[in-house]
């Protein structure tokens, strides 16, 4: 530098005088083109306001589309006939039907006595306890099934790997009725699995309408989640860290344990925590594949709301929310303490799935991968293929009748009936819209919750509330809070229609972005952002130029989840859509369910195809994760 600092002696001071809105190096720009300097200033102004503006927008959106509507329902737990009371809530807590032996605690029994009974042979879990129990089992199953998938996707190179990774979260969008159809066809008495088992002379299994079937179905939905987030974390492990460990004498296993595992397993834990929360709030799939004996909390929330017993429903929903948020909070506290600082830019090199001349160890690993592939094919592919098959099967064998129905409905359906093409179009539009809203929302919340301040994990947990709350409560809340509207100064302000649907989808999807982007941002070296800012970048610019490119795998994963949530969303859409013009594919599927499921499965296949294509596009658009 020869004259850079000399002639700009007062620059910092000038900026200070201008109240911090002028960039500090205005004097440098002064000898450049004045209009470009003005444009730069305007851009800078916009840039530095964008994060606060986005944060404010996020809060507003959450307040209008989530907290207020949900509040209108939950408040009924404590307000009965215009009077505030804890009676109902306490009543639920003391009801052994709901809380099992734990209800004793709230009824004033000693914790010791309660613990004694819980440990005894005649323990009673209650609906809440059972729901947690099946959620825990489902979580274990999802991790067991999802983790090897992440290993294969992150560590091996094979044709179609990227496409496969793009498609991992496909199960997320499938309506439960579709999954039920696929499961009955796969795991039922006359299903594919039993046919295969008896073909090779093995005893058949009676899986359906058991807890096992429900757990497997939950794994079908959630193992992909574990896989996706873990793959993203695994791909972010910096190869040089592993190489350093190896150069220090660590064997491959030791290097994995000391370097890779600490960076991967927070993601596994996150997948597990989210899986627990989702399966804790499970509803239709339990009744479709298990039966009423396995009824969960959400089943009763639904039942009570349908029966207009709002107080008890709200109380139960609060208990449900407390358990889910409590677990998420515990997880987030843990995550905060176990963040691994890393700056992974060069991902680990992948192994070829089929090496030319494998060593014994390599061969052993491949055998394991093959065994896993077989399990994955059974659990994931078989039900999906069964759905496909169901969509082309009629009473007299193979038929395109169901697809013909879709075409026919599209051509001749009445205006008040749901037609396939508008549903596809709306789903895509809402999905893209929701993605465009959820991504900045999630990133902003991730930024806010990775800053250091007291209680930030509490904020983070509260920001996760849309994942943890009963979907039925959200639906009712949106109806009351938005569709019916609020009376302000004698005018009723009601909200509905396409934009409301997009916003609701974004609210439902943004927590995924937070969860997939947040830990990555947290793990980034803070000095990277500070360097950028010292170089003149606004906070928003630093985020865009430096942080987001470095956590790209997380951003792409979050985007895919947000899109998937939008594609699969039902309860909010059906409440907010103002007519068939705004109906989406899941609604079309529901409408096409009849005595025979052919038309619905055909629509389901359309959903699958459209969503698959979208996922591939999102991943391609997002670039090779980690490759940069």
């Amino acid at each position, binding site marked *: *530098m*020869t*004259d*850079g*600092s*000399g*002639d*700009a*002696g*007062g*620059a*910092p*001071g*000038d*900026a*200070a*005088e201008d109240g*911090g809105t*002028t*960039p*500090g*190096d205005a004097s*440098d*720009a002064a*000898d*450049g083109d004045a209009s470009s*300097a003005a444009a*730069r200033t305007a851009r*800078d102004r916009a840039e*530095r306001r964008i994060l606060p503006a986005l944060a404010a927008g996020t809060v507003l959106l959450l307040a209008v589309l989530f907290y207020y509507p949900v509040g209108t329902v939950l408040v009924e737990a404590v307000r009965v006939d215009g009077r505030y009371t804890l009676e109902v809530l306490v009543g639920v807590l003391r009801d052994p039907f709901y809380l099992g032996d734990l209800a004793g605690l709230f009824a004033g029994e000693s914790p010791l006595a309660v613990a004694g009974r819980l440990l005894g042979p005649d323990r009673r879990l209650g609906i809440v306890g059972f729901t947690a129990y099946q959620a825990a089992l489902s979580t274990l199953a999802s991790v067991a099934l999802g983790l090897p998938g992440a290993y294969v996707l992150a560590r091996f190179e094979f044709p179609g790997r990227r496409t496969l990774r793009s498609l991992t979260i496909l199960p997320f969008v499938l309506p439960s009725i579709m999954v039920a159809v696929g499961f009955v066809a796969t795991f039922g008495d006359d299903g594919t699995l039993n046919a295969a088992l008896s073909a090779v002379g093995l005893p058949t299994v009676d899986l359906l309408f058991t807890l096992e079937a429900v757990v497997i179905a939950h794994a079908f939905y959630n193992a992909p989640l574990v896989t996706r987030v873990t793959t993203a974390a695994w791909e972010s492990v910096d190869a*040089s860290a592993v190489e350093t460990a190896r150069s220090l004498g660590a064997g491959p296993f030791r290097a994995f344990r000391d370097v890779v595992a600490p960076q991967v397993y927070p993601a596994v834990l996150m997948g597990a925590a989210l899986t627990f929360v989702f399966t804790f709030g499970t509803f239709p799939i339990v009744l479709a594949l298990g039966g009423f004996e396995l009824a969960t909390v959400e089943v009763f929330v639904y039942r009570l709301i349908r029966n207009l017993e709002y107080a008890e429903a709200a109380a139960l929903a609060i208990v449900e929310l407390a358990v889910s948020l409590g677990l998420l909070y515990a997880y987030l506290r843990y995550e905060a303490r176990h963040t691994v600082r890393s*700056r992974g*830019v*060069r991902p680990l090199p992948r192994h070829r799935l089929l090496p030319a001349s494998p060593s014994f160890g390599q061969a052993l690993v491949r055998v394991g991968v093959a065994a896993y592939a077989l399990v994955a094919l059974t659990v994931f592919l078989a039900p999906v293929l069964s759905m496909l098959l169901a969509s082309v099967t009629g009473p007299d064998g193979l038929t395109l009748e169901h697809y013909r129905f879709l075409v026919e409905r599209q051509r001749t359906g009445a205006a008040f009936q749901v037609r396939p093409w508008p549903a596809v179009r709306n789903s895509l539009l809402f999905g893209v819209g929701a993605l465009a809203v959820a991504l900045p929302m999630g990133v902003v919340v991730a930024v806010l919750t990775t800053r250091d301040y007291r209680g930030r994990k509490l904020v983070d947990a509260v920001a996760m509330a849309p994942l943890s709350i009963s979907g039925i409560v959200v639906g009712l809340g949106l109806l009351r809070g938005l569709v019916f509207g609020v009376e302000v100064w004698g005018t009723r302000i009601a909200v509905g229609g396409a934009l409301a649907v997009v916003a609701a989808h974004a609210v439902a999807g943004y927590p995924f972005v937070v969860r997939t982007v947040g830990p990555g941002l947290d793990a980034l*070296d803070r*000095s*990277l952002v*500070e*360097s*950028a*800012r*010292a*170089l*003149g*970048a*606004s*906070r928003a*610019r630093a985020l865009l*130029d*430096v942080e987001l*490119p*470095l956590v790209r795998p997380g951003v792409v994963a979050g985007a895919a989840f947000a899109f998937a949530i939008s594609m699969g969303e039902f309860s909010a859409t059906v409440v907010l859509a103002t007519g068939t013009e705004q109906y989406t594919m899941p609604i079309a599927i529901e409408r096409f369910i009849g005595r025979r499921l052919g038309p619905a499965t055909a629509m389901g296949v359309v959903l699958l195809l459209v969503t698959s294509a979208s996922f591939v596009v999102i991943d391609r658009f997002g670039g090779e994760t980690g490759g*940069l």
Partner: protein
Amino acid sequence: MGSEDRPGGDGAAPDDAPVAVELDGVSRRYGDTTAVSDVSLRIREGEFFTLVGPSGCGKTTTLRLIAGFEAPDAGTVRLGGRSVEGLPPEDRNVGVVFQNYALFPHMTVGENVAYGLNFAEPPGGLTREERVRELLELVDLPGMADRDPDELSGGQRQRVAMARALAPGPEVLLLDEPMSALDAQLRERLRAQVKAIQRELSITTVYVTHDQEEALAVSDRVAVMREGTPDQVAPPRTVYRRPATRFVAEFVGDNNVFEGRVEAVEGHVEPSDQVDRNIHENAPHGVGSPVETEGSVGGAGNAESGTDAAITAVDVGETVARVRAPGDVAVGDRLSFCVRPENLRILRDAEEDGRDPANVLRGSVASAEFLGETTRVRLSWGDRELVVRTTDPLSGTISVAFDPADAHVFAHERR
């Protein structure tokens, strides 16, 4: 501030240069711990100023307060004479180099260096490309623009980080332990380069290091920090020769610290120039302001009387030492003083006779570290240790002696 103690040379800021960075009563707390406590500093334009101290002393926080990464809980930071309160880092026109360099791993070297030029016109009417080339040449990395940071050595990364920080032409360069990740040899070479670049650009530089040797080597002035506050702010020579506190005495270089009660005051001597010159730059920890304001700031005991000094006999336990102490010293007062290892002269047996017995210390060799030019020897002396420097191999029991004038009194506690 005297010129003699300045490393001098054309790059150093003249005394009358305007203040570039000023901290005025700045504090920063994190929860219950105070990272920076009531710090006041003035750094002049073109000065190479170093914050040195052990980890947790608040030096990095002080740097971050200047950069704007942290906001003070109290006090004011001024850049170029104006308060920068509420001004975000991007508007402070500072260049920062971090310990880990924080190069953007997804950008090439050239893109890294050019990044700041997205937000400021390149100085001197250059194009971006010209500016990047100029900077890479300045840090001796010509033609490396297309490399990935991944492909560079540690020293090269450090230099890219320098180039990046300098590219937009900042007013102040802030360096946060930029050498600590490098090996010793490279560190020495690079600090010379950093110093040379600083001189060439005459850029105000605030340098943070835990390495006192590095601090003494490169700085125009040094602030030795402890528990959030500078114990002493002075040119390197002053800090070395006349440490203001026991902490500074022990932190900066090897030292032998003694403490004891004044037995007798044996006569006053004319104060040397040197003592006088340094007094107002010295401030004991927690007393007054360490800023080199004119007038008395409560120096090493003789500040009030100012001028004269006395040879004093001090009982330091094993022996009674004769040291030159502040003139107002009285029998019964407690004094703390230090003697640098190089001022502890090793006596041949013959020399012992006839010497002032008070300043001869006998101890047995406990350990010796061969440092090349010299050997650092630790002597067991009573229940404590003395450090001496020697060029000859030593063993067994030896005697060392020091001149009363080489003892520096840094604490004086009146009876």
